[in-house]
């Protein structure tokens, strides 16, 4: 925002309240109410206003208090933001960022716990980013704001409370990350585990457990759902010959399905085991804590799947 006066932030409670999750803390004070705008509760309205402003070259950062609420604005994200450049034959580009927390929170039930990665990942014209660490968040958000196209930036509420080590490089004002490039968080040789957002942390924990049992897992932090870094994924699978995909969202037509297809298409001959997909249960999120835990992937699920892929445990018989 300090580098480009065209950048502004709008959304519910981003100003005086400092963000529902305090993510925009201090911004109102620093940039003033002209650039940090508290909106009424009208996602369809302000997302569309953002698009109109982007048509004329402003760089709106539109915050959804949570991405669940983006469903009320999805017409503008998909129809107005993602398709305008195409429909206008490149005359009108839409440099806008839609950001906010995505995915399952805790104890908030079906309507407030959902992952939108594969929803937006299915739309031509959108870029979809999923930061995991502080470094990701900083580097990718800067890239998103500078990008000439609409970016859906999926943060994670439960990660807001986590801290990560940050390198001096990441703190440098010139630091930025490329869109569409995955990061190998941990190198390994026996099995590839792909994950994004909060699940990267789970995958890393699973990798630690697996290491103790002699399985060396390579963990790929996707960072970008669309474009998807097929090259990094396939190179890894060609090395390890085994793949476990992890996502919090629903299994059907999910991110894992897309990754699996890419690997089947490009590296089929390298696979030594069926691809394992770990995803959320195929149900709306239950409220009860015990059911909720069963509905989202756990570290143990990843460990088990990796072992199955490495034939270290009996394959799951007829998974329900």
């Amino acid at each position, binding site marked *: 925002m300090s580098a480009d006066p065209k950048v502004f932030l709008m959304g*519910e*409670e981003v100003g*005086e*309240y400092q963000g*529902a999750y305090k993510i925009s803390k201090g911004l109102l004070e620093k940039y003033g*109410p*002209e650039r940090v*705008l*508290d*909106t*009424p*509760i*009208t996602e*369809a*309205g302000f997302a569309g206003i953002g698009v109109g402003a982007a048509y004329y070259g402003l760089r709106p950062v539109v915050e959804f208090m949570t991405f*669940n*609420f983006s*469903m*009320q604005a999805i017409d503008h994200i998909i129809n107005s933001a993602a398709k305008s450049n195409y429909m206008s034959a490149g005359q009108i580009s839409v440099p806008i960022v839609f950001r906010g927390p995505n995915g399952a*929170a*805790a*104890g*908030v*039930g*079906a*309507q*407030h716990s959902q992952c939108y990665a594969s929803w937006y990942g299915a739309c031509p014209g959108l870029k979809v980013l999923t930061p995991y660490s502080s470094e990701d968040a900083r580097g990718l958000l800067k890239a998103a704001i500078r990008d000439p196209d609409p970016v859906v930036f999926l943060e994670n509420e439960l990660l807001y409370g986590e801290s990560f080590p940050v390198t001096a490089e990441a703190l440098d004002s010139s630091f930025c990350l490329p869109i569409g490039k995955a990061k190998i968080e941990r190198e390994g040789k026996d099995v590839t585990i792909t994950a994004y957002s909060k699940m990267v942390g789970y995958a890393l924990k699973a990798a630690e457990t697996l290491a103790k049992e002699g399985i060396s897992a390579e963990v790929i932090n996707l960072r970008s759902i669309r474009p998807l870094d097929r090259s990094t994924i396939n190179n890894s699978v060609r090395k390890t010959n085994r793949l476990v995909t992890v996502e919090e969202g629903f*299994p059907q037509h999910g991110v894992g399905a897309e990754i699996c297809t890419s690997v089947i298409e490009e590296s089929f001959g390298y696979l030594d085991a069926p691809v394992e*997909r*770990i*995803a*959320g*249960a*195929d*149900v*709306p999120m*239950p*409220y*009860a*804590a*015990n*059911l909720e835990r*069963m*509905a*989202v*992937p*756990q570290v143990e*699920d990843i460990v088990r*799947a990796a072992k199955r892929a490495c034939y270290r445990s009996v394959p799951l018989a*007829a*998974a*329900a």
Partner: protein
Amino acid sequence: MSFTATKFAPSPLPLNSTIPRSNDKPLSFSFDHFKPHPSSSFLGSTRTLLRFGALARPHARTRSSSPVSAVLLQQTSNLLVTKEEGLELYEDMILGRFFEDKCAEMYYRGKMFGFVHLYNGQEAVSTGFIKLLKKEDSVVSTYRDHVHALSKGVPSRQVMSELFGKATGCCRGQGGSMHMFSKEHNLLGGFAFIGEGIPVATGAAFTNKYKREVLNQADADHVTLAFFGDGTCNNGQFFECLNMAALWKLPIVFVVENNLWAIGMSHLRATSDPQIYKKGPAFGMPGVHVDGMDVLKVREVAKEAIQRARRGEGPTLVECETYRFRGHSLADPDELRDPAEKEHYAGRDPIAALKKYLFENNLANEQELKAIEKKIDEVLEDAVEFADNSPLPPRSQLLENVFADPKGFGIGPDGSYRCEDPKFTQGTAHV
């Protein structure tokens, strides 16, 4: 260009010229003429509030108002409730208040989780409206729904158990705090997204019209109440439904619980014309403003609006001016509301106001009200014990209720329906 709060503050509108209520005809609304009548001067909006600057209601009168009950008292010959009714209202409001206090306690003890939005302070609206309904009438609520559920008759045990995430809850632990449903009581949710409940409520009202006019059920006269907040009145679904409800004369009452805040967003900072009731006439339905801290006034307005709907005369928009005594949810630090404002409204506690009315009109004595409070205490102790001792939802419940017909899960690799696989009901995270 300036977006500062001061610039957003509404310029003073002409004071509403409606006649202040007179003693003989205290609560008349021109429902028939669709005239907006801010029938109460919303006592909070007088001098005291003007001091809050931004919070001054545009239609606030500058004279100092007497307390609600004082106005009503002047017509003792014409009491607004019978003793039984008065006690019923009191009991329902105490139930709502004590239930929510219990929730706060249980939340801090880790018995319930997630976002828990409490209703303290707004009881007069739920009680004033819902206690007039028949069981067949519908209520559609928001994430702040516990008390609407209770007023509609869902037993405390079931609501508490739901909040504890137990199998005996009104939604078997699947819904949670923000999603209370009870088919038996025609409580249709529990909608956590802003505005979402309004079209659904309008659809419930549509059904009644359809039953009457298409299915020839001449006696279909069910009314739907849609409850939602001030912040929600800036969402398109509100306007879309005002239009359709008026267009099709649907039997619905849109009940706005204007507690002046939407989380940390002041109503006046969010809304170009903050007088919500005025949006009724714009769509061709009556819009009424009522003091939502006075259950008797709410009830009076509610009675007419509900009867109007039942008579097939169409929808009404009612703006109840109220206040929440706690933060937006139990996770809200509540730093933006002026302590003086909070104190001011605490002084207008709707339960205290009803109590005063009952006493002053010899409708109840101290012991009777104490007995009600004691009874509710016991009801809630029982509800907590019941919830605490209830079983967690079993693992087999995980995949239930996704579809009315579980064949919706499709056919498995072996050619039979996946739901028929004995392992199916065990439910796993990777179905």
